[in-house]
């Protein structure tokens, strides 16, 4: 069953065509229950707007979405009881203690007081629970936000930049908590800039650029495992020129190790034959697995405008 399913979801800010901004443009993707789903995109690409529509703080202009198969105002209101979410920075009452902030969230979620202690323990904030929120470090604020999302033991946890501004130790703590939640079978929808973290944590990703989904699917499929090759030759310039003209190559870029080409097919014999025909003899040819960061840079800065859907 899908925890999240969007269909042509669209958000336009402003009603006058000349001044309006299309923040999210007909995006469609699905998150299966139990997946740890990374939602990636540069600043201003529409990530937070998309999440805002899912959690009910932003009204979609067009399109639709379902949470746990439910749609429509009543259905979504009920389904959101199975969701825990934070948007952008942790949003709490600065003059209240961490525990009192969780008391407010618990009352809203209809959760009993004992659960507050359990969640504070899980994020390691029990000893600072009585201190005011405004005295917390950023890492503690993020952990309190995680505790708040977990109060109602949600099936779907939506986290928007949970590691924002954290030091390596803080990032590691957040990652560990996410792993614990994933191990408990929670569906996690994670928006982040920390691509190495996402690659390490997520099973599936979607990359959004200028309000449109550029690619989505299993991480292994998105990074193009098996379809990219690393090539080296004595004359790198000639190799690059030839590969850019090669019809089967969808992208070609230079790296410190050589030339990385993404191929439509995995026919390496044709590549060697083609290059030899151009008078280029390879010193190295091997499958190449790009990092998620490389794919991200490629699809968000490159000329890829059409949607490439990789369904796992």
């Amino acid at each position, binding site marked *: 069953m899908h925890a999240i399913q969007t269909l042509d979801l669209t958000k336009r800010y402003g009603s006058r065509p000349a001044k309006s901004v299309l923040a999210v443009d007909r995006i469609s993707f699905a998150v299966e229950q139990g997946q740890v789903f990374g939602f990636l995109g540069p600043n201003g690409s529409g990530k937070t707007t998309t999440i805002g529509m899912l959690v009910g703080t932003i009204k979609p202009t067009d399109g639709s979405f379902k949470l746990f198969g439910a749609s429509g105002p009543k259905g979504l209101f009920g389904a959101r009881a199975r969701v825990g979410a934070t*948007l952008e920075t942790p949003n709490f*009452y600065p003059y209240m203690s961490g525990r009192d902030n969780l008391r407010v969230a618990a009352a*809203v979620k209809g959760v009993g007081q004992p659960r507050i202690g359990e969640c504070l323990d899980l994020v390691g904030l029990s000893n600072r629970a009585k201190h005011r929120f405004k005295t917390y470090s950023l890492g503690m604020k993020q952990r309190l936000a995680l505790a708040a999302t977990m109060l109602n033991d949600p099936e779907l946890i939506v986290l928007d930049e949970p590691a924002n501004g954290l030091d390596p130790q803080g990032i590691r703590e957040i990652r560990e908590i996410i792993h614990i939640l994933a191990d408990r079978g929670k569906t996690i929808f994670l928006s982040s800039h920390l691509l190495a973290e996402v690659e390490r944590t997520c099973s599936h990703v979607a990359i959004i650029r200028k309000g449109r989904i550029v690619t989505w699917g299993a991480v292994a499929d998105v990074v193009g495992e098996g379809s990219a090759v690393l090539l080296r030759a004595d004359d790198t310039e000639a190799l690059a020129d030839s590969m850019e003209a090669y019809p089967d190559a969808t992208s070609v870029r230079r790296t410190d190790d050589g030339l990385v080409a993404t191929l439509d097919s995995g026919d390496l014999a044709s590549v060697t034959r083609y290059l030899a025909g151009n008078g280029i003899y390879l010193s190295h040819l091997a499958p190449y697995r790009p990092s998620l960061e490389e794919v991200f840079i490629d699809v968000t800065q490159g000329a890829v405008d059409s949607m490439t859907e990789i369904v796992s």
Partner: protein
Amino acid sequence: MKILRVLLRIEWLKAVRRRAFWVAVAAFTAFTSLPVIERVRGAHSNPNAVFALPESWPVVLGTAGIGPLFIAALMILLVAQEFSWRTARQNVIDGLSKERFYAGKVMLLAGLVLLFTSAPVLIGVGGTMLSPGEGGPGFIRASDFGYISGLVLGMLLFGSAGLMLSVHLRSSGASLGILFLYLFVEEGVAMLMLGTGRESLRNVAEFLPFNVVEDLGDDLVHYPDVLAEVNAERAEAGLAPLEFLDVEMLAVAALAYTAFFLGLSLLNMRRRDL
């Protein structure tokens, strides 16, 4: 009913943890207590100067006329910050609908009005218990009850205006600025302009919000005998007598403004993204 209890608990927790709330309550209580303390002290030194309810209600309620301003400012401080801290958004993410969040704020307004009405009543009762001498029969007369009701309507009107500004502007500074600019400058200018116009325009000026609240909190409106005394003094001084204002019309105007401001707030909450 359960959701109302939940909303009440949430709003109570948010308010009582806020220093501004206690500062406002303390300042209002102190301000309302001052004339009562003065009268009680006077009653101890002068046997003819009795402080006792129900005769002393005008003394107790006179300074409580500032209550609507306190309510408006407190509503702005307690509601507008929810938008700048983005806790309104988090409340909705956590499971409150926008309508329930709004309902919580209306309950906050009702709670503040109840608190700011109870304070002078308790001060009056306390003053009577501490003062020597006795008052007339009964605890409250119809005119006293009308006076208290007028104050309640004034608090509701200003409180709902504070709520509307908070929801619309989402900034406590801007909301307070506009509120006080309107109350102390803009309405005065509007009254001057309308006052020089036709009869119908002068009637409109009488029912501008601040004027309605002022009139509802004026003892001359609620006590015809006091008005008669004042008019007798004015006649001796060669001044025209003051008219006895239609309290029912003022009450209807106050309720209409309150409903309008609350309706506008709800519409705004529903339509705008958080």
